[in-house]
């Protein structure tokens, strides 16, 4: 029995979607890896300005990490609810995921604003350019994740938990976990190692 080129009710199409999305996430990882490699090269190029130690608050970063971890955990619970056809539970859990994501974003916003207001902006050195770019690119991923979270959860609300909407909640969750893992790299490389 051949695998049809274009079914949507057969799970083989979901398999294709998951594989394709995985590969996309790997390309995103390589893009982040490039930014991290650049950070590794320029992290001490402060041009007489502040270094990581001067601008980073490790405890604040830890709280950000905990917020995003919780968001990821709740997302996993939400996905489990979706795959076990518990629509209401899923919606509530993703609502919480969303709120925690917003909280994370707000904390990042405050952090970056504070740094700029202290007089240290990305125009001052390669180190600061790299730091702001890493944080900004990651934040952009969170924003995009939140947008699609809203859209896909709304679709579940309107259409219920079908094969298609479950597939979308799964790929969304993959994206959300991925963004969380990138943040772990961020915290480790930029905050923990960088601010030594």
């Amino acid at each position, binding site marked *: 029995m*051949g695998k*049809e*080129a*274009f079914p949507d009710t057969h799970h083989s199409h979901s398999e*294709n979607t998951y594989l394709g999305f995985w590969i996309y996430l790997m390309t995103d990882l390589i893009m982040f890896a490039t930014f991290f490699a650049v950070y590794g*090269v320029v992290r001490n190029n402060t041009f007489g300005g502040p270094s990581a130690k001067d601008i980073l608050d490790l405890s604040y970063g830890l709280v950000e990490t905990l917020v995003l971890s919780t968001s990821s955990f709740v997302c996993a619970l939400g996905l489990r609810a979706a795959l076990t056809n518990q629509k209401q539970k899923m919606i509530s859990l993703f609502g919480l995921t969303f709120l925690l994501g917003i909280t994370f974003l707000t904390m990042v916003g405050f952090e970056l604003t504070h740094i700029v207001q202290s007089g240290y902006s990305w125009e*001052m*050195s390669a*180190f600061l350019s790299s730091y702001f770019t890493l944080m900004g690119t990651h934040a952009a991923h969170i924003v995009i994740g939140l947008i699609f979270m809203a859209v896909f959860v709304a*679709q579940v609300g309107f259409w219920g938990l079908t094969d298609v909407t479950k597939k979308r909640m799964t790929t969304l969750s993959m994206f959300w976990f991925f963004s969380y893992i990138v943040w772990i790299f961020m915290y480790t490389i930029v905050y923990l190692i960088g601010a030594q």
Partner: protein
Amino acid sequence: MNEIFGRLTIDAFKHDLIEASVGVSILIAGAVMTFLLTYYKRWTWLWKEWITTVDHKKIAIMYLIVSAAMLFKGVVDAGMMRAQQVLSVGDSFGYLGTEHYQQLFTAHGVAMIFFVAMGFVAAFINYFIPLQIGARDVAFPFVNALSFWFFVAGGMLLITSLMIGNYSGVGWVAYPPLSGIEYSPGVGVDYWIWSIQVSSVGTLLTGINFLVTILKMRCPGMSLMKMPMFVWSVVVTLILIIFAFPILTATTGMLTLDRVMEMHFFTSGFGGSPMMYVNLIWAWGHPEVYILILPIFGIFSEIVPIFSQKKLFGYVSMVVALIAIAFLAFVVWLHHFFTMGAGPNVNTFFGLMTMLISVPTGVKIFNWLFTMFRGKILFTTPMLWFLSFVFLFTIGGVSGVLMSVAPIDFQVHNSLFLVAHFHNVIIGGVVFGIFAGFTYWFPKMFGFKLEEKYGAFAVFFWVFGFLFAFIPLYILGLMGATRRLDHYEASTGWWPLFAVAAFGFVIISIGIGFQCLQLYVSYKNRKKNRDKTGDPWNGRTLEWSTSSPPPFYNFAHTPEVHDIDPFWVMKEKGLKEAKGNYEKIHMPKNTPHGFFIGVLSFLFGFAIVWYMWWLAIVSLIGIFVSLIVRFSDRDTEWYVPVEQIEQIESKRGK
């Protein structure tokens, strides 16, 4: 700076006579097409059949058309440059201003690599991968259409730069600090960044799409080691794309941040490192050139067995060689800047890795030659392109291995010797391979055969044209002539060689003339030369088992295979495709969102180039809206009824 128009002023539309006439010709061509479409009432047809299509075969045809147009532009660029370098000696400064000349070689490189080579390769991948693996479509048809429209949007940004503002003049890889905001404050480098960024999104999506297609949608019985060599070469290419293109996205992204937000990744001061850019851009750039050539190797592996009437020699070895080349492609990037002073140990390592690539490449050439050995060779046009490729690509490979020895490279880096080398391998390899693939697969795509004899003349003039155009450049490089010069002193003694090179361009143009003539005459004789059987060459792979062109669903019955060269085996065993007993076929519906997102990404790129921030935000939001609307559409597929399949299949062979 204006709130609405950013830094776009009326000055952007002012150009010198030559540039203006180019812009005017483009506008006239557009106007003529618009008129014809209106007069023949074909707007609906264009929208329904082409712009909103998700059929991989039609998308392939569109790639062909765009790439051919870009090839024309790239060739004209080349002719203009050759003319300038013949005229601009001593007291004369030629007919082109320096800035125009610098934009020419930059745009020539970008157009040829991103929009011609990659476009033609994308066309063949699009048309023939699903057919060769016995699939009815790609894994993600909408994403496939989206890839094409990103490609077009990137190309349109390049073309727009000819008319509004100007293009970059800092070379096709745009090294900082020259490409930074301090030394290039204008719009040129920004156009360069965004034409590449936008089209590269398309390339990356193609990489993901076709990798999933090949891994998941092969017909029953087609294990990996039974796939056609073209499919193998594409698998390896897609892996290269997936690993390399994100680096380009990040790097040009950082260059944009430097230019637009005054960041300091690659500036000379403030802790920036131009050397870091050089490393990053070539970490992408070297895999890129293998992305160009590996599918070509796959095409030749299809062509040589057919026209030797013999199976491919050393299938396993060929696969291993592809994988070896792909792996090595990632560990050689520093050979693009041996002269940047990395030290002898680093230079030695990268030199050794570079030289090693010649081993698996040579294996492929020997395997093709021994496919011909004890075969019965037919000197059709595709085969002539292949033989010319062996001759020219070998010379180019020699010059490449020469340059992989760093101390030799110190004497030829960035000279015309380098320019001759890469044109040698790109023209002798990629371009000849594209022509071979095009003439080989033409009957399948268009339903009629090409008139052979014009093809032979085209090959002849291209080969000799190449030799006259580029062998002098090898010598010029050894004489100390660098690349990218719009003028030189008469005392250098370079002029006679530039004159020979210009003559070579004329010869190549005659070759192109024969190709155009071949298309014209073949089209006129299309009824006489119709491919009625779908198998004009006695083919070995599954695409030849379909009609020419194939029905939109590719296969009425999904094939089941047991061997390499499955169609050949079927013919040997006298098996025919079962008629009747059809089941309804699941197909995707057309969608306008690929086109919409393409237009919006063009606007996004244009907006950032001209600092029109409101437009950037609006077009970005528009892209999200279009995607969300697309995701909210639940009516995206349909079933082809059995009656329609029967009707189409009954017309085969008539």
